[in-house]
Structure formats: C-alpha cells, structure tokens
C-alpha cells in the first residue's frame, strides 16, 4: 500500500467557531488510530493544510483518554460569522476539509485500518 490514506478513513471531526477562531475536534474511529494520528496529524501539518486561509496560529490539544485531539486555528474564518463574505462564516464545513488530509500509509496507519476492518 503506497497510496495516501485520507484522514477520513480513521477519524471523525466536528467544527465549531468563536469569532475568528476555528475549533476542530478530531475523534479516532478505533483506539489503534490514536498513535499514528498523533504522529502524522501535527499542528504544523494542519496549519499547512489550511494555509489558503492564512492562519496566524495553530495548536493541537491531545486527549488520549478520549481517543481524540482538539485543534484550534486562529484567524481563519475571514473575521468570523458576522464579518465573513463567505457562505459558511462559521466554518462548519471545514471539519471535512481536515478529514481530507492525506496520511502516509505507514505501519501504524495500516494497523489502524486493519483494526477498523475487524471492528466492522
């Protein structure tokens, strides 16, 4: 397996906003996904993935006990829902932009995909 694997395969996401700040909760579909996502879905990669929106800062909070991460990206919502010219000023749809992030299919990712297969 060499093709990139979209993050979508291994995780769920929900977006929320506060002003011009985007909050992205990322939840692992199986516990085995936590380690490979922790390694690959870094704050730096997520900032790069959202670079067209010119974020001023990005932080990842780790919640291993919940099998989840929380990303906070600053100044990516075009001023926020009350100032944006875009259709989705809340950035609600951006959870699925995060989920389009490509993962390298390393051993951890392959292990997590296998665990997901077993589960379903």
């Amino acid at each position, binding site marked *: 397996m060499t093709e990139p694997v979209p993050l979508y395969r291994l995780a*769920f996401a929900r977006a929320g*906003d506060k002003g011009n700040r985007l909050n992205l*909760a990322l939840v692992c579909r199986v516990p085995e996904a936590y380690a490979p996502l922790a390694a690959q879905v870094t704050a730096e990669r997520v900032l790069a993935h959202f670079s067209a929106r010119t974020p001023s800062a990005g932080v990842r*909070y780790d919640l291993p006990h919940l099998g989840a991460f929380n990303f906070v990206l600053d100044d990516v919502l075009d001023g926020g829902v009350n*100032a944006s010219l*875009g259709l989705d000023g809340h950035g609600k749809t951006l959870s699925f932009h995060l989920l389009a992030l490509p993962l390298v299919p390393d051993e951890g990712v392959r292990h997590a995909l296998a665990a997901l297969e077993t589960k379903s």
Partner: protein
Amino acid sequence: MAQARADVVRIGSGAGFAGDRTDAALPVVAALARQDGPRFLMFETLAERTLALCQLARHADPAKGYSPALEKLLAPVLGACLASGIRIIGNFGAANPQAAAERIAALAREMGHAPRIGIVTGSDLDPALPVSALATREVGGSLLAGRTQITSADAYIGASPIAQALDLGADIVVTGRVADPALALGPLLHVFRWSLEDWDLLAAGTLAGHLLECGAQVCGGYFADPGAKDVPDLAEVGYPIAEIHRDGTVIVTKPAETGGRVDRFTVIEQMLYEIHDPAAYLTPDVVMDLMQARVEEMGPDRVRVTGIKGKPRPDTLKATVCFESGYLAEAEISYAGPNAAARARLAADVVRTRLARRAPGLFVRVDAIGIASVFNDTAGATLESLFPDARGDDVRLRFSAQSADKALLDLLLDEVEGLYCAGPAGGGGVRRHLTARLSSASCLVERSFTAPRARLLGDAS
C-alpha cells in the same frame, strides 16, 4: 421541600438554538413527565447577534426585544410542563427578560395556568460605560478601536441568579444572556446546594450543560455520515436528557422511541465542541478541565461521564459587543452544461473588470458553487487553482462584498444582473440580496460591569 433531598436531577433540552425544531421538546417532556424527582427543561436560543437584533427590536417597540422564537418553542410544551411539575429555564429574554416573562404569563393564562415566572436580569453592561472602555478590553481583534456607537453589550453571566430565581419558587425562569451551560448548572445549584467553590462539582454541572446546550448534537444530530457514521431515524432524532447525580456523575440519554444515538462517539464530539483548550474551558462559574474525563457506555443510548475537574472561576466575564457595520451584498448566477466552468470564469472576470472601473477599491469575493465555495478562501486563491481544470457542469457563481455605501454595493448587484444580456452564453437564475450587517467583538470585562439579579414577575423591581 422534598427536592432538597433529591440525589438525581433530570434536565432535558428543548432547543439548542433559536431556529431549532418546535416539536423536538415534546418527547423530552413526555419522558420527563414519567419520572419522579426534580426535572427541568432548558432552552438555549441566543446566538451572538441575537442580543443586538433584539435590542434594535426593543428600541422600536418597548414591549419587544425578547427572542422571536419564544412562542413557537415554548407554546407546544408549556401546558404539559406546568401540569407535570417540570420547571423551565430559557434564555428567551434576550434584551428584554421582563417583556418575555409577561408574554409567557399571557401564554400560560390562555391555557388556564398561572405559573410563577422568575426573571434574571443584569447581563447587559452598564450603559454609562464609554465604548473606549470596552475597546481597551477587546480580545482577538481591534474592531472597537475608534468606534463611538454600539448596539448592544452583554456579558455571559453565571448560574447563581438562575438558582436564586428557582429558590424564589419560579416554575419558569427567563434570562437574558447567560453562559449556555449555566442554564443547566442553575437548577443543579438550586437542588443540590453545591458550594460555589466546589470546583469539581461546578465543572460537572457545567459539562452537563455543555452536552445539553446544542440539543440534538449529542444524540446523533450533526453527526451522521452515511456508511461511516450511521444514525438511525435521523428525521426523528431525539433531544437529550441528562441525569446528574449529587456526586457530579453525569448520564446522558434520550427519550425512548426517538431516533438518533447516544454513545461514546456522539458524546465525545459534543464534549469537545467549541471547547478550545480542553484543560481550561472558561465559564463565568468555573474553569472546566476535561483531561481526566471518562466516557463509558452503560447500555443502549446511555452514556456516563465522570472525572470532570474544575479550577477557580476567572475574575473577568466574556462580553459580546455588537455594532452596525454597513451592508452585505450577495448575488448569484448559474452556468451549466458543456464548458460551464470556463463560462463561469469569464463571467467572474467580466464583473471584476467592470467593477475595477466603476467601483474602484470595492473588494469582491467570488465563489463558484460546484467547484470551490465553502472550501474557497476570501482571496480566491483556492478557486483560481481549481478553475482551469474544473469539470463541473453545473456551476453557480456567487459574488459578495460589504460596505457602508449602499450605492456602491448596488453597482455590484447590477453588474451581476447585467450578465443576463451582456455576459457569457447561457447564464441564468440570478438572485440578489442586500442585507444590513451587525458585527460583533469580544471583550473580557470586570464582573462589576454587570448586575445579575433574580426576581419573580409581579414583585417589585
């Protein structure tokens, strides 16, 4: 009162936002009515701008200024709640809790009830404060700098005045702006008499409110993704009920015979929703810490959350300040069939070229629905990168701009409409809108800027 000895409080959600379903609360009330002990129904109906819109409505008519959603959300369940002893907490009051209380009293009278209605006021900031004092307290921007006029300024106040209104015997408590989770924490303080400095319990109650405040979002609403995250009977998704124990244990469930699902995944997604730093979620009552939270499935549609920790409440309150900020213009036109993307791109170029001459300096955002719109960026770089190879054969162009100058925006709207006869081939379906804009800024303000208090309708103010 018997309630003072209760070890479990049940709180249902009747609405998670003003536009929520008006029949959502019915199964929640039916389920609560079958239970004993203290039971509450909470309604969250205030978005960021609602206070400003309601303030404008109150200026126009002193009997208005409360949430326009009050009647449609409350009327279907008011009688059943009063008959079953389910007490109601709602932030319907917006900019005029007194008027909301009077409206609720009238609604109840029509149904043959005479409930005691509690009113929580004082989230509005002292109007004597100069805007400059707010500008120096703004966070995350500098929208208030140099401004002299604002429409509304309200702080997110905490749960204590809600508990006080219930202590006074209110069957229904109507508030203005309060922190959303306070709508649940207030009843818990009233029943359990938790210390206002028992941070772990305050945090557990806040977590319960946080899980409830968005209605169906913890029960499979805003969750479904066919094949990946299936939700049974989403059309009839149930709204949540939380069972909160005296020791701070929170159990989330939903009425039987409703759609949706409550499990680890739906609870964790909502737990982290808009939470930012999960070790320090700031509320007026407590700083909530989720770093030791445990989420366990206890059975079908039944999830227990424990391990919520709290830290002392912040000194300051978050306030939202709204001000009028000109107008938003939006216009759309569609291109479809062979070479649609290229014709859409040409149309965008035509409008841009003409506006550069006729309205120099006006920034216009262009989206192409079907190629890049919600994933586009304001500068349009994403769309530009996709346009050359775009194969979409049903493309809707969308232009948008904002300005204080209506005439300038009319030029944009006219240029898009002008594409009918003078633009590329096959354009159709023009729609144009001009709407007044209210913008908002966030401030951190001293608690002394607010004057939270509770009283009953009819008692001296």
